[in-house]
């Protein structure tokens, strides 16, 4: 049998899909102002959804002069200098020009940026703590302990979404476990929470740098993480363990339904739960190649997320003053 119908249909489908917006444009001409407003609203919404861990707007914006914003955040005197350094590095990494960060009496931080950079600042004032967990071994069930083989706890194959619970239930489970914490589910489940227990496999200390990039295969925006020597070892060890566990759990001749996941948590939200395909990489992934955060990112949010992770974490979120 030498049919090429499946690839021919694929090519035609994607070719037509690529021209979809231009075909719709003439019909929408009369609605352009509305469409433009809707597009702006969607961009704003996307920023809020993709960077949900920092959605507070700073208080008391003072325009000095009109093209400049001055934003003030509460801080602890003991950590204010460090916070100012981190914010300067994050703003520089995000490409915000003409930004200044100063420490006022009492430890508050005053951030002065061009008015157009308001969304960047809002995305950068989170603590920026990253933690990477072995999902099946860390997500906690009703007893406050992991249940790696229970799909009603892990949500497999929809890890990070399915089996999400409420915030109060997650907090209750987390309270019973060592190093337990409640985290928000993937943004597709806005009200969902999970409880994670135990120490993460990797943290900020294992991240050497972060930069926005584009996946060469899919052209999707990503954040590429470069790992320290310890981070490379930890990532290699983590993914090898996941691959071997997937192999051990697999039904002979079946697919990847036994694949194991790791979860990337930034501040209090799960941002990605990839799985390791044990058939393709039975020994896991080489940490020397780094890792990437992918899924649901726009070029803007990838730039902001890379900047958030580029300069180490803050002692705590910066809260707007007032």
């Amino acid at each position, binding site marked *: *049998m*030498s*049919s*090429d*119908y*499946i690839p*021919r*249909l*694929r090519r*035609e*489908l*994607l070719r*037509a*899909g*690529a*021209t*979809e917006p231009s*075909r719709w444009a003439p019909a929408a001409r009369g609605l352009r102002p509305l469409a433009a407003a809707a597009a702006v609203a969607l961009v704003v919404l996307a920023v809020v959804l993709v960077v949900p861990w920092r959605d507070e707007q700073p208080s008391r914006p003072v325009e000095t002069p009109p093209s400049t914003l001055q934003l003030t955040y509460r801080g602890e005197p003991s950590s204010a200098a460090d916070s100012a350094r981190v914010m300067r590095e994050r703003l520089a990494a995000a490409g915000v020009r003409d930004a200044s960060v100063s420490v006022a009496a009492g430890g508050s931080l005053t951030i002065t940026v061009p008015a157009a950079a308001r969304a960047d600042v809002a995305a950068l004032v989170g603590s920026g703590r990253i933690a990477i967990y072995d999902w099946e071994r860390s997500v906690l069930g009703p007893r406050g302990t992991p249940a790696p083989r229970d*799909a*009603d706890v892990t949500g497999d*194959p*929809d890890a990070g*979404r*399915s089996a999400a619970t409420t915030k109060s239930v997650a907090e209750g489970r987390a309270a019973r476990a060592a190093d337990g914490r409640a985290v928000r589910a993937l943004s*597709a*489940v806005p009200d969902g929470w999970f409880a994670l227990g135990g120490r993460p496999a990797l943290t900020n200390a294992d991240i050497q740098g972060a930069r926005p990039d584009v996946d060469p*295969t*899919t*052209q*999707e925006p990503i954040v*590429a993480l470069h790992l320290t020597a310890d981070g490379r070892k930890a*990532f290699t060890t983590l*993914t090898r363990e996941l691959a071997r566990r997937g192999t051990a759990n697999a*039904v002979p*001749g*079946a*697919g*990847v*339904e036994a*694949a194991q996941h790791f979860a990337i948590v930034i501040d209090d939200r799960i941002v*990605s739960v*990839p*799985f*390791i*395909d044990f058939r*393709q*990489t039975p020994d896991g*992934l*080489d*940490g020397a*190649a*780094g*890792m*990437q955060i*992918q*899924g*649901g990112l726009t070029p803007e949010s990838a730039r902001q997320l890379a900047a958030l992770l580029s300069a180490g974490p803050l002692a705590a979120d910066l809260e707007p003053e007032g």
Partner: protein
Amino acid sequence: MGTVHYTDEALLLSGDLEDFGRFYDRYVRALLAFFQRRTSNPEVAADLTAETFAAAMVARKRYEPRAATAAAWLFAIAHNKLIDYQRRGSTEDRMRSRLGMEPVAVSAEDAEMIRWLGEEVASQMVEDLPPDQRDAIRAHVLEDRDYAEIARSERLSEATVRKRVSRGLRVLRDRAGGTR
């Protein structure tokens, strides 16, 4: 850089056309088999498959992961296309026209391949599934019964039925040569 793998839902929602292509790769064989078994006509099965994917392409931004898995969503579209076909006695091309798709010809070899998928994929491969997945796939995909009905008759939760169907489809997709 290490390769990571993404769920059907992530592929559908990414907005990237190549991701949609990867989603297509995962399910095109299962859809061709689905339509072939119901119509016994490879040309119609091919038409309905193309129309289903065109509809999924147009509607993917409205897909809501909380409501259904991406596979269940795709098969719900397929089911509607099948009902339209059975009512009208002919396939429609509304979504393909909207996308501006050109017809994709079905050769004798293509028809043979689709017949084979209908016979082999939907019968033998389903039989080879673990019993819980096999029964769930038979009931939902081959017999068109909805999740709630299956859950009632099997004394299972609806979530469990969904999970078994989802896992069974993943196995079928992999065995049919779909790529992840």
